[in-house]
C-alpha cells in the first residue's frame, strides 16, 4: 500500500470554529445552506430542543424544532448519540466475529441485521447454504418481524398516550423471544445466523412453544390490535397525519412499510427474492393513503402474512444439515458483494468488499431507519408538537440502526 497523503487538518473548509455556547447564546454558527435556512428565525418563531434525553424519542435522538406557537415550522434532527463506529470495527474483525457485533444495530430486529451481512459473505465465498438452514432463517426471521411489529404497536400507542397496549404487545413479544431464546440462547441480540447456515438446529422446546403459540397467535394478536383499531381517539389522531405520497417516498428512498403504505408495492422478498421466499405463498400488503393510520394498519397486515409464512415453513421444512462446512479462517477471494433483506423497517442491506485477507476491507451497512428520519423533517411542518412524536413513531425508527 502506498503512503497516502494526509489531508491537512487545518484546512478551513474542513473545520468549523465553534464558540462555547452558553444557555443565553442558543444559535450555533450556521454553515450549510440548509442550516442557514433553519436557524434564520422569523418573528414569533422559537427553537425548542427535544433533547437526547426524552421519554419518547425512540432512543437517543435530538430534534431541534422550530415552532411558531403550537405549530412546528421546521425540524432538524441531530444524530450520533449512539454512534459506535461499527463499520470501522468490522474492518478489524474476522468474518465470523462480525456477526455478533452487527446485532445491536437494529436491536429490535437483530436477526435481519445478521441476515444481510451473512448473505453478502456467502456471496463472497460462493457458499451454498443448506435448504433446511434457509427455512430456519425464514422462520426465525418472520418471528422476529412479528416481535418487532408488536413493539411498534406498543410504542406507537404509548406515544399517543395509551399506556395499556404496550404491555399487551410486550406480553406477545415475550412469548416470541422466549421461543427464540430456546434455540439461540438470547432474547434480544440473537447471534444466531452464521456464514453458511445457522448455529444449531431447532429443538424440542422451540417446537413445543411454537406450536403452542401458533394455536392461539391469531386470536391473541387480533385482540391486541383491536385495542387500537377500534379506538375512536386513536383513529382520529392517526388518520390524515403525516401523509407521504408516492413520489416523495421514492425520492426520499423510503423502504419497507413506509413505502408500501404510500402505494408502492415494493418488497424485496418479491422484487428481488432471496433465500426460500420464492417457494412461499404470501401477499404484499399495500395501502394508498400514506398516512400514519395506513402505516400502522399495514404493519398489522404484515403480521398476519408473517403468520402465514411461518405456517408454511413449518409444513415445508426439509431435513438436512443446518450449516455448510466452512474453514474457521475464512479468506474469500478479492471481490465485492451486496445483498439486501426486507426487514421489518425496510430494506436492510450490506455491501462487503474483500481484499483476500481474513478481515473485510469494507463493510457498509445500510439501515432503513436512517432514511426514514429524513422523512420526519419533511412530514412535520404544519403539524403540532404533539404530532412530532406521533409521526416519528409511525415511521418506526430504531436509533441503533440510525447511528450505527
Amino acid at each position, binding site marked *: *500500500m*502506498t503512503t*497516502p*497523503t*494526509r*489531508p491537512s*487538518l487545518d484546512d478551513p*473548509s*474542513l*473545520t*468549523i470554529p*465553534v464558540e462555547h455556547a452558553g444557555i443565553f447564546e442558543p444559535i*450555533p454558527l450556521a*454553515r*450549510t*445552506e*440548509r*442550516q442557514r435556512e433553519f436557524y434564520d428565525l422569523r418573528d414569533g418563531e422559537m427553537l425548542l430542543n427535544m433533547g437526547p434525553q426524552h421519554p419518547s424519542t425512540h432512543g437517543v435522538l435530538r430534534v431541534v424544532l422550530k415552532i411558531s406557537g403550537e405549530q412546528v415550522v421546521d425540524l432538524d434532527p441531530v*444524530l*450520533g448519540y449512539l*454512534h459506535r*463506529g461499527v*463499520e*470501522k470495527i468490522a474492518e478489524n474483525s474476522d468474518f465470523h466475529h462480525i456477526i455478533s457485533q452487527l446485532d445491536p444495530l437494529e436491536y429490535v430486529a437483530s436477526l435481519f441485521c445478521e441476515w444481510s451481512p451473512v448473505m453478502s459473505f456467502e*456471496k463472497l465465498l460462493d457458499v451454498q447454504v443448506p435448504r433446511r438452514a434457509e427455512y430456519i432463517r425464514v422462520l426465525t426471521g418472520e418471528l422476529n418481524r412479528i416481535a418487532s411489529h408488536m413493539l411498534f404497536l406498543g410504542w406507537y400507542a404509548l406515544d399517543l398516550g395509551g399506556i395499556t397496549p404496550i404491555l399487551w404487545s410486550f406480553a406477545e413479544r415475550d412469548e416470541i423471544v422466549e421461543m427464540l431464546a430456546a434455540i439461540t440462547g438470547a432474547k434480544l441480540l440473537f447471534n444466531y445466523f452464521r456464514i453458511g447456515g445457522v448455529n444449531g438446529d431447532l429443538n424440542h422446546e422451540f417446537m413445543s412453544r411454537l406450536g403452542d403459540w401458533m394455536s392461539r397467535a391469531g386470536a391473541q394478536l387480533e385482540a391486541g390490535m383491536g385495542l387500537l383499531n377500534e379506538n375512536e381517539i386513536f383513529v382520529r389522531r392517526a388518520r390524515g397525519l403525516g401523509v407521504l405520497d408516492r413520489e416523495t417516498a*421514492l*425520492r*426520499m*428512498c*423510503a423502504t419497507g412499510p413506509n413505502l408500501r403504505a404510500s402505494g408502492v408495492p*415494493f418488497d424485496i422478498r418479491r*422484487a*428481488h427474492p432471496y433465500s426460500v421466499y420464492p417457494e412461499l405463498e404470501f401477499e404484499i400488503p399495500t395501502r394508498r393513503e400514506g398516512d400514519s393510520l395506513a402505516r400502522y394498519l399495514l404493519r398489522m397486515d404484515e403480521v398476519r402474512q408473517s403468520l402465514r409464512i411461518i405456517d408454511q415453513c413449518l409444513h415445508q421444512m426439509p431435513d438436512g444439515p443446518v450449516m455448510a462446512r466452512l474453514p474457521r479462517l475464512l479468506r474469500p477471494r478479492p*471481490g*465485492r*458483494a*451486496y445483498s*439486501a433483506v426486507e426487514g421489518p423497517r425496510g*430494506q436492510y*442491506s450490506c*455491501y462487503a*468488499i474483500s481484499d483476500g485477507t481474513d478481515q473485510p476491507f*469494507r463493510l*457498509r451497512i*445500510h439501515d432503513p431507519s*436512517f*432514511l426514514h*428520519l*429524513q422523512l420526519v423533517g419533511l412530514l412535520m411542518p404544519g403539524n403540532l408538537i404533539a404530532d412530532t412524536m406521533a409521526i416519528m413513531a409511525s415511521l418506526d425508527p430504531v436509533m441503533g440502526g440510525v*447511528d*450505527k
Partner: protein
Amino acid sequence: MDRAFRALIERTFGDDLTGPVRQRHDETEMRIRPGDVPQVMRTLHDDPRLRFEYLGDLAGVDTGTDFQVVYHLWSVVTPDWLRVVADGIPRDQPRIPSITFLWKGAEWMEREAYDMFGLVFEGNRDLRRIYLPDEFVSFPLRKDFHLPDDASRSPGGGVRPMEDAATPADAAETTVRRTAKAR
C-alpha cells in the same frame, strides 16, 4: 446474472464506462468517472428502458490510494442489483457531484460519507457532519486514520485523557511524584 442487461448497459453508456461491466451472482457492476455521475444517474433514472427509480444504497469506500462512491440501484427491468462505482476520486481533492437533485433521500447518506471519509458532495445543500460532533477534525473510516492520534486531538472524540500515558505538562508535583505528603 442478466446477460441481456449487461449488453444494454454497455450499449447505453459505452464511453462513460471506465471498465468492463462485471457480473457476479445477482449483481451487475459498472464503473464510471466521478464527474459523470449526474448524467449517468439521470439516464438510469429517466430512460424508459432502464427505469432505475429505486436507490438502495450510497456508500463511500477508501481503497487505500483513492476514494470511490458506490451506488446500488434497483429497477423493475432487471432482476439484478445495479452497482455504479464512481472510481478514482483523488485523496487531495475528494469532490464528487451530488445526486440529491434526483433522490433527496441521498442527502443524509452523502452527509455520512462526508463525515466518515471527507468526501465533498457538490450540490448537497446540507453537507455537515452527521454522526460525529462538529468539532471533530478527522475522518474515521479513512485507511490512514489511526486511533488515538487523530481523534485525541479533537475534544469530541478519541481516547480519554486518562489513557494517555504521558503526564500532562501542567501537572502538580504531587501528581507526578505520587507520594502521600506534598514536598
